[in-house]
């Protein structure tokens, strides 16, 4: 099945490749959240939507959807830099992430590098039998690239997750369960485009390859294997 997915990708990538080279006289430089295209200083963009992670079967016994309210934002700064961030919550897991990116464009393409810091708070003390809280700090070095088309922009973002601390508390027992380790990485692919009149939408998928993803903190994962956690997202530009 994995082979089928890969072969399909190769087929669809290769077959219409010639159209890639066709010039376009109008290029879409709309200000989007995931694009690496630099923002003018002071310009901001904000998207609000939802993310849905499918927690993998080895961990949850059955592929389990974990939804989350998902906010993304980006604010242009001088010197082609911008700060970007994310906030999300599904009550059991709440996170906030902020980072700095430097990027530049050449023609339709944009490339950026950045780094962000995330704090994650997990709390399921309200569930009977789970007197459990978690705090996590992680750093995400990132490279991003995007390609602007007349009607939409495609962006890719590769991040590595370096977990600086993970502390779990059960009742009055607090244990540091992970510290200073590479927890995995992710590739985010987003397509951002106008949807209806002037309402723009971003949608895509984050392919997480992680040992201990934030969405599954309360499952007390003990496998050393890294697992694949796809996360679908959609957001509307406000």
């Amino acid at each position, binding site marked *: 099945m994995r082979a089928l997915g890969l072969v399909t990708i190769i087929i669809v990538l290769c077959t219409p490749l010639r159209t890639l080279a066709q010039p376009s006289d109008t290029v879409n430089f709309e200000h989007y959240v995931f694009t690496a295209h630099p923002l003018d200083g002071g310009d901001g963009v904000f998207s609000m939507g939802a993310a849905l992670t499918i927690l993998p079967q080895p961990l949850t016994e059955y592929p389990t959807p974990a939804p989350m309210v998902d906010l993304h934002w980006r604010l242009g700064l001088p010197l082609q830099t911008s700060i970007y961030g994310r906030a999300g919550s599904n009550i059991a897991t709440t996170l906030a992430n902020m980072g700095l990116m430097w990027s530049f464009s050449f023609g339709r393409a944009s490339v950026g590098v950045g780094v962000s810091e995330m704090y994650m708070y997990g709390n399921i003390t309200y569930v009977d039998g789970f007197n459990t809280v978690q705090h996590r700090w992680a750093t995400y070095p990132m490279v991003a690239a995007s390609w602007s088309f007349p009607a939409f922009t495609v962006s890719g973002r590769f991040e590595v997750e370096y977990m600086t601390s993970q502390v779990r508390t059960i009742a009055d*027992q607090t244990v540091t369960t992970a510290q200073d380790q590479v927890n995995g990485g992710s590739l985010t692919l987003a397509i951002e485009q106008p949807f209806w009149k002037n309402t723009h939408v971003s949608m895509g998928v984050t392919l997480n390859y992680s040992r201990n993803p934030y969405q599954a903190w309360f499952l007390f994962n003990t496998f050393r294997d890294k697992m694949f956690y796809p996360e679908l997202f959609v957001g509307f530009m406000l």
Partner: protein
Amino acid sequence: MKNITLVLAALVLCLNGCVSELTPVVYPTVDYETVISTTTPLTLEQRAQMNGIYIMQEGRSTFGDTVAVRWDGEAMSIYTVKSVSFFYVRGGMRTDSARFVGYWRAVQGPETGEVSLGILASEGGKELAEGKGNGVGLTLRGTITSPGSSRPNTLVLKKIKALANRTRGFEIIGHRGGGRNSDRLGKSENSIELMLFASQLGATACEIDVYGTSDGVPVVFHDPTFTPRTVQGAYLLGDISNYSLRQIRGFVRLVNGEQLPTLEEALMEVVDKSTIRTIWLDNKDSRVVDEILAIHQRVMDHAASKKRTIRILFGIPTTEIYDAYMKSPLKGTAPVLCELDQASVRASNAAVWAPRFTDGLQSDVVAQMHKEGRDVYCWTMDDPGFILRFLTEGDFDGFCTNYPTLLAALFYTRKDLK
């Protein structure tokens, strides 16, 4: 433009196609017969002499400083905290030395390899052959193979003292018969094969799950429904209670190919063929409570006829099972393990209270339960940090775990147990 839309669609397609599967474990093929046929089996006294805490003189980087060595039946196991590994080796004495072969497996990952160990006459073999001493100083020396390593690595272990224990006793309870399917033990969870192997993994007890078929037969199975996680076979969908035992036997197998066992078959096999001393029946179907209690009686009669000491606990995990048990004409015929509140524990006169570990140590309640003559088992402990805390700061009589290997390693090698 179209190529981009295609790429996105293909990635979504790929996304679903690449849903996570853990790396399969390929166990080495070990030639036990050659060694067994050229050695003499160890006596019970010799096995006891070998049991103990060993320091790793070589192999520390993989398995840590200290490990626990414990014989169970014809096989010797080694349990390590670092790498969370178990060794399964068999062999025996050759005059005044010993020779063992087998395999090791790191249970939280896919790593496995062959093991070859021996005891030289000058490193404790002579004393072992003569049955002298307590085994301290005895040295196991040999090699292991590891994935990614072209040459075998040297392993040297030296016994420093006896295994730690606990005055009140302690049960290392293997969840789902000894581990989950995702632990890739080569035997399906809740299979007879895994229950018989559980003691090699370090378990002294097993927790098994019980559901009823549509024709009222209690079977050992964890989930309420058939899924690819638990069974092979595409056609039995939905609740296990939708299907008769005949249909189940006809159309599905457990994920490693075993027959889905009835409760009675499983308990009889454990009584006859294992050293497991406690079985916790995690009952999940209130329709078959009476039948489970009847099976308990038959199995205990069988155990008595074989002079086998075993405790089979009737588990009460939910109020539905509690209500069915309290109404059963066979109430009181089996020792009860109750996961509910203290009032329910007392009302059902449970022999064991079993709280979830995520509720914390609950030291006052545990002490009270002990005063009332009840044991307290905690579930399901898999994190080494929390296991250590609960072992040293709590006063539990057993933990249910997916990693009996880890719990055994921590329990037997700890210094500051209550």
